[in-house]
């Protein structure tokens, strides 16, 4: 009967498509995507929409300055992207290692690189959808309302691109931690500590190593706010650093997962 079926051939990414299909099915099942969409919309745009609506109803449309609304939007969205990525990815590797499903999947002709990349791609697409694609139009409308006129679209899109890179930093960072640690607690501890302390780290280490703070990812959401107001970015260093870190983190995750034993 085997001859009736068309056999797949071996590549460095054997099993990737099949794994991606199943990973995507977790994200895109109607219940999950609806829950995620509502949770993200509530935690990001609803918080901005609420004071704007109250001010509008009171006839005080311009009471909250645009720059303040903008900073709240980029600030809340960046925190949601960082924490959301950490929470959604903290168990993606550890959970499968602990339950034994990783061992079962890897007993099939699937490379470990495919395993990591399928997790990375499906989660990145999912988080980008609920965290950026869904928030951006609503945020654009709210910010334009607060501004009193439509914001220029291209700078806003570039700003969203910066925030997408910011999310990708945390997605790959958490994935890497998942390959290094065996408990969710360790991953959450390290990742949340980093989210919370990066400004402090920037100040302390930046005082010793000049330019250190400019490679930290929080410069990206600060840059996003600047770009929306059509101000120039002080430096492209945060973009280059975040891009480089995502590659390094992904590389470490693949390397470490290839060494892991199940």
């Amino acid at each position, binding site marked *: 009967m085997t001859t009736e079926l068309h056999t797949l051939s071996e590549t460095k990414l054997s099993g990737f498509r*099949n794994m991606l299909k199943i990973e995507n099915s977790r994200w895109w099942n109607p219940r999950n995507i609806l829950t995620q969409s509502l949770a993200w919309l509530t935690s990001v745009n609803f918080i901005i929409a609420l004071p704007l609506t109250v001010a509008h109803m009171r006839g005080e449309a311009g009471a909250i300055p645009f720059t303040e609304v903008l900073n709240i939007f980029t600030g809340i969205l960046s925190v949601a992207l960082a924490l959301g990525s950490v929470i959604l990815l903290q168990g993606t590797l550890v959970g499968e290692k602990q339950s034994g499903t990783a061992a079962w999947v890897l*007993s099939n002709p699937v490379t470990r690189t495919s395993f990591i990349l399928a997790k990375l791609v499906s989660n990145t697409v999912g988080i980008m959808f609920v965290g950026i694609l869904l928030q951006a139009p609503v945020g654009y409308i709210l910010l334009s309302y607060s501004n009193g006129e439509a914001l220029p679209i291209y700078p806003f899109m570039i700003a969203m691109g910066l925030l997408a890179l910011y999310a990708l930093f945390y997605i790959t960072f958490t994935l890497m931690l998942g390959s290094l640690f065996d408990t969710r607690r360790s991953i959450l501890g390290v990742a949340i500590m980093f989210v919370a302390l990066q400004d402090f780290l920037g100040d302390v280490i930046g005082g010793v190593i000049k330019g250190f703070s400019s490679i930290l990812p929080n410069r990206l959401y600060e840059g996003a706010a600047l770009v929306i107001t059509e101000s120039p970015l002080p430096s492209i260093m945060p973009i280059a650093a975040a891009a480089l870190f995502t590659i390094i983190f992904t590389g470490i995750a693949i390397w470490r997962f290839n060494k892991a034993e199940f």
Partner: protein
Amino acid sequence: MSTQIYAETYASSEEDKPIIETRGLCKSFNGTTVLKYLNLRVPKNSIFGFLGPNGAGKTTTIKLLLGLSYPTEGEAKVFGKDIKRESIVIRRRIGYLAQNPVFYDHLTARETLRYKLGFFFKGPRDRIEVRIQETLQLVGLDDKADRPIKGLSGGERQRLGIALAQVTSPDLLILDEPAANLDPMGRRHVLEIMEKLREHATIFYSTHILDDVQKVSDIVAILNKGRLVAQAPIEELLKERASIIYTVVLEGSSDEAQKIVQSQDWVSSVEALEKNGRTTLQITVTEEKKAESSLLRTLMSVPNIQVNEFSRNKVDLEDVFMKIVEDTNNDD
């Protein structure tokens, strides 16, 4: 050890290369060696029983063969391919059932089988669906095929595991305790499936149920404390390892009978137990043929006794297994 020499003689007499061959395979965890210089040879189309007490290193060996773990020392080949460098090629031809099978709970049994086949085949889709349906029927899960796995019982999960292991028509099935969570009916069903599959596949399986091993296996290997202590066809192992013991129940004066039997050069020991005026003798012999032809006649020739019962003890794999494990434990 003569049973281990078997491996060499078998290899030279067999035209085909072994399906699994390990040489000096070792595995250590944090400085503790759990597998010590394992030399295994699993012939093509055999049902190979891999036995050993808990913690003997059976699952570790299986994980090494599947590329889920890496050897500290030594080498292993499956289908002549190196387990470290060619693991994906090897896994394409293997069906594996884990000791405690776990799957994605949100998927149904049908979706899980579809997922499994997706690693092996790209189509045609309708043929894949036919294969899935046939497999579900084979393991008796067709009526529960579209329920999420989280609703299945332990036995049903085990059956799904067996379905997944064989749905790709693998050349080698590696089953880690395949009947562990099954009731007697389920166990029998698994043995029947194994018998069916042996026509085109080699089956390498670990188990604690020695009765099953004796029923279906051609060859067994016994692992104890990470070391291979026996490897031979099952009949050979039973013949070599089992002592030939006769039980005789006598009435009358048994001292004379004991003396006469003990004096035979093919008798190694005689143990007597007296109860209610009867004496039960446990006679261990070294030469089966001589005992068969002479023992009863010798006893009948003794005056003033009556032989009430005469039987040869049946020795099964469990006795042999226990003896080997205890012997090796004592050696340590």
